[in-house]
């Protein structure tokens, strides 16, 4: 594999066609690696993006998107809306990552790649030395094998009891939530806006991390959901109480997998665990309809979330060092400096 790195505007040929060609052959059915997802990420969040392209002879074998992070450090382009490394490859063997680092223009002492998914990107993961790998998140999936009742019976007893209790409490105190599924392209933008306006009323709104039709993130998801709805590959699941939206989930999917992109709920219904009741309903619905094989949460699962999963896996970050001697020395010195700084700060705070 021989790597070349180009500024995205100077990529020779049609980048998105090349990207999709690799996805179709090696990552088929992962909606988060589809060109329609990645292209939108670049349009909304990309600034000074570089494309690294690997060829084997005349054949394109891998593509990844990079950006300069610090003077001699580069990183994979991965806005927070994306939970997987934007790296697609046809090569099942070594990825020649040292060749990739060498191909980066200027001097690159370190390249960081975030959120490497072993299920999707094992050749990449295996090409990174163990010393350069670190755990990023514990991701979970729920596979729709068998019936919902079988799945539910296999969940921990405490989860089943809690959901049953919440369900009764909601019915008793606020009524039975109405379940809506929005898939129509004509309605999906409004559903995404509703999602954003609900999320903005909660803690994420105050933290300035909520999506909302009035901000860039809201517009990104609006465009994303519309693009996937046009392919019949997007669904917004909603819960209503008294005609008021109280919980919502944004998802995109293929025959192979559904990705739970975002979830929110009305915090005034916190004690009713309305968000969890919606998840229960969504999983039940997906077991019944079976239009996809698995739902992947692409999240760092909490202990409570693990209870819903049929499968779990560790996602990784990876660092590849350039000129190994100099790089090791520079980063060791940086680590020592950080350690001394922390010690001094702790001493001062203790004092």
């Amino acid at each position, binding site marked *: 594999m021989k790597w070349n790195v180009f500024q995205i505007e100077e990529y020779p040929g049609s980048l998105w066609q090349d990207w999709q060609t690799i996805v179709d052959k090696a990552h088929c059915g992962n909606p988060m690696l589809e060109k329609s997802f990645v292209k939108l990420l670049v349009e909304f969040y990309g600034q000074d993006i570089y494309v690294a392209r690997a060829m084997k002879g005349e054949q394109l074998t891998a593509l990844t998107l990079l950006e300069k992070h610090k003077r001699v450090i580069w990183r994979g382009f991965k806005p927070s809306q994306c939970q997987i490394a934007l790296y697609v490859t046809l090569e099942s063997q070594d990825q020649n990552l040292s060749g990739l680092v060498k191909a980066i223009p200027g001097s690159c002492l370190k390249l960081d790649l975030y959120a490497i998914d072993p299920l999707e990107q094992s050749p990449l993961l295996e090409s990174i030395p163990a010393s350069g790998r670190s755990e990023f998140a514990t991701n979970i999936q729920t596979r729709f094998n068998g019936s919902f009742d079988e799945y539910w019976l296999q969940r921990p007893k405490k989860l089943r009891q809690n959901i049953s209790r919440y369900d009764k409490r909601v019915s008793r105190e606020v009524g039975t939530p109405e379940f809506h599924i929005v898939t129509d392209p004509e309605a999906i933008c409004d559903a995404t*806006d509703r999602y954003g*306006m609900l999320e903005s009323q909660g803690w994420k709104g*105050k933290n300035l991390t909520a999506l*909302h*039709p*009035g*901000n860039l993130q*809201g517009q990104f998801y609006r465009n994303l959901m519309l693009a996937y709805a046009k392919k019949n590959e997007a669904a917004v699941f909603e819960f209503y109480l008294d*005609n008021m939206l109280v919980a919502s989930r944004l998802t995109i999917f293929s025959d192979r997998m559904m990705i739970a992109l975002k979830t929110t709920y009305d915090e005034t219904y916190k004690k009713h665990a309305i968000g969890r009741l919606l998840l229960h309903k969504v999983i039940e619905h997906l077991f019944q309809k079976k239009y996809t094989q698995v739902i992947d949460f692409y999240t760092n699962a909490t202990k409570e979330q693990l209870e819903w999963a049929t499968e779990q896996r560790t996602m990784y970050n990876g660092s590849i060092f350039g000129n190994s001697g100099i790089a090791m020395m520079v980063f060791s010195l940086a680590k020592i400096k950080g350690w001394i700084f922390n010690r001094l700060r702790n001493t001062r705070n203790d004092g």
Partner: protein
Amino acid sequence: MTVEKLGIEQLLTRVKELDKSPIFLRPSWFQQFEKHIVPASQSPFYLSMNGEGEQNTFLALMEETTKGRFGYQTHYLHSLTNYYSPYFDLGGIQGVNTYCYQNLVSQSRQMLTLYDQVNLLPLTRQQAMAWRDAFAAIGFSGEVYEHSSNWYHDDIENVEHYWSLRPSRLRNTLKRKRDKMKKEGGYDISIVNPSNISELRSYLADYHNVYFDSWKKTEPTPGFIDSVAEDAWLRGELRLGLVYHEKVPVAAQIWFVAHGKAYIFKLAHRKTYTEHSVGTVLTAFLFEHVIGEDGVTYVDFLTGDDDYKKDWMNHCRPLYGVQLCNTKTTVGLSMSLANTVSRFGKQVLSAVSKKA
């Protein structure tokens, strides 16, 4: 007479929302402000004062402590305001006067003197001076500074009267643009009248989509806009104007109307529709509605000295902030001295430049 430090929940139960309170000084405004805007580093509270048999009045504040490079701490008290706030004053009372400020400050002396600096804004000049004098009595030195401007129109008799006072340039532009929109067709302009909150949110989403595509900077906390708009809608005070072209929202404005006054809170149009002046046409539509239908005699463009405002309004007044430094604390005194030196420096520079 007693002064108490309250949280928002206590305030909401103690202070009745006076019908005639300006929207921006009501407990419900501050409740939304706390919910959406106040950062974790700042703690809001309300100084509530009540006399026998009198309505509670309150001052909405937030405290903040910062740590300097050499470890010293500075204790600030700020008005519970930011760029969304067109006014600041005592809440829960009609006819605030200098005596009210003096009373509140003297009654809260013990608490207020714990702070090194108190910052209040936006204020009229009269208010800023009154706060400065009230705080001077408890050992604070005050610096009044210009903060922003407020365009408004008062004494409006009716729609014809209002238009008769506008420059002919504006009237001609409006006629031309209205005719053009009519000729092109596909435009729909209205002040929406949602029947439920979900419908309102859908219109608000249209507003936000327009706003995002306008020339304006993205709102950091759009949820605040939604909350105050919903609150105003529940009280019948919201006027949400929208222009659609081929069913796509292209201009949107949020106005509030209360007690004979209209407040222009938010306005935006899509960049691609600038040459069609859809915003101007919508502003005119809303003016005619609030004067003709709601019977307002006063329209307020709130803060900001944008050039286009002068065509619609007949008065502009500067808005001020006041920085009050506690001369009884070391940090406060040093801040006060810094202000004095800065003021002196500016005076010298001004004198030199005049001579030159």
